[in-house]
């Protein structure tokens, strides 16, 4: 494996991480919106969201990706590999995040919400000033956990031709007839990223535990 090969894998890594970030950035607020829809129990829509979350959480990312990449053009929507990848990542992230957000919303102390009502805060104010800050705080470890899980499934994007880590590694392996080293390098790139995220999550959890114990 030459230096150029390693560079190719690195470039693939950049693509992977970028797509993951896009997926997370878009999926996070969508997940929150979905969770709020269920929390507010909006008629019909809450049920639809519950169904969507249940199905997407049960679907392997590779299957979802293939579905979007092949099926959408079939019904008239043209979509390229990168867009399909982002869409699959966003749908996946939103569904998993939704559950993290929802757990925090469901466990939100009722009397704090009533206190906000009793001083005359409107629904928007109640949500923005009282509910959201605390829900973000509580959801943080779970959300970081989901991020690390998301990064770990991104190698599958190669399946639809996104030139990410996997594709680069496969190509090099095919060219050099030595498939193992590029994959080992790919793992060596991934592992620290995931490890960093897991460490951040543990740090957040530890800090929150200490804060609670001191109270």
């Amino acid at each position: 494996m030459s230096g150029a090969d390693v560079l190719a894998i690195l470039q693939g890594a950049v693509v992977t991480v970028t797509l993951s970030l896009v997926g997370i950035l878009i999926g996070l607020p969508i997940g929150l919106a979905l969770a709020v829809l269920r929390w507010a129990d909006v008629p019909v829509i809450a049920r639809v969201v519950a169904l969507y979350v249940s199905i997407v959480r049960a679907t392997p990312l590779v299957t979802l990706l293939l579905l979007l990449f092949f099926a959408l053009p079939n019904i008239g929507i043209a979509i390229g590999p990168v867009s399909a990848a982002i869409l699959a990542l966003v749908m996946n992230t939103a569904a998993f995040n939704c559950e993290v957000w929802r757990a925090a919303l469901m466990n939100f102390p009722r009397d704090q919400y009533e206190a906000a009502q009793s001083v005359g805060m409107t629904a928007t104010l109640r949500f923005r000033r009282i509910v959201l800050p605390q829900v973000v705080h509580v959801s943080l470890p779970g959300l970081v956990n989901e991020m690390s899980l998301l990064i770990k499934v991104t190698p599958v994007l190669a399946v639809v031709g996104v030139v990410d880590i996997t594709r680069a590694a496969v190509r090099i392996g095919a060219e050099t007839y030595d498939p193992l080293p590029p994959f080992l390098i790919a793992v060596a790139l991934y592992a620290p990223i995931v490890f960093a995220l897991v460490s951040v999550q543990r740090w957040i959890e530890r800090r929150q535990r200490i804060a609670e114990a001191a109270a």
Partner: protein
Amino acid sequence: MIRDFGIVWSERDLLLSGLANTTILSVLSAAAALVIGFILTPALVAKQRWLGLLARGFVDGMRCVPFLLFAYIVYYGFPSLGVRLDNWTSGLVALTIYNAAYMAEILRGAWAAQPREPIEAGIAFGFSSAGLFRRIVLPPLLLAAGPVLGNQMIQIVKDSAFLTIIALPELTHAASSIQSRHYVPFAAFITAVFLYWGLCLVIEAGVGSIDRLAAARR
């Protein structure tokens, strides 16, 4: 669209064999991973430092590696070691080793949360170590860890889909094959999605009944 589903229906044998492969693969690797997990967990909490570090290194390592890449490494790595494995076996091995790490972590957490007194009572009543494990330690442990193990099971089912990459004829691979031959991508993959969903619901129902068993005994 109806015609498309008709085509998928005509290929149902392929789809069902894919589903069977997914199910068998998942169940086998889950069981094997659980057994290995039971061996790993004591190593995780072992008094000998080197053993604990080794086990912790393995568990944390598996947690940081994407399964797809790990499957590739197993698939391409074993031949380098001289062992020829077909894709089914290497898929099973990859799935098992990978999830053994997660099972060990789950069992460790469940074990730490278990109260000690019932076990001490068992010892006081004269239970030998084998009997103690089988009748006093294991049942409450599994009941408590039920939901988390169920989640891991679902994760295993989803990870199995990655093995389509190494041409293992599981469900996603079957759907892909039908799609590429008949050009019915929507019908084929939506069917696969609903089959995965069904599998998931079955697992959740199983966890639910274990949960009810556990609740009755609380």
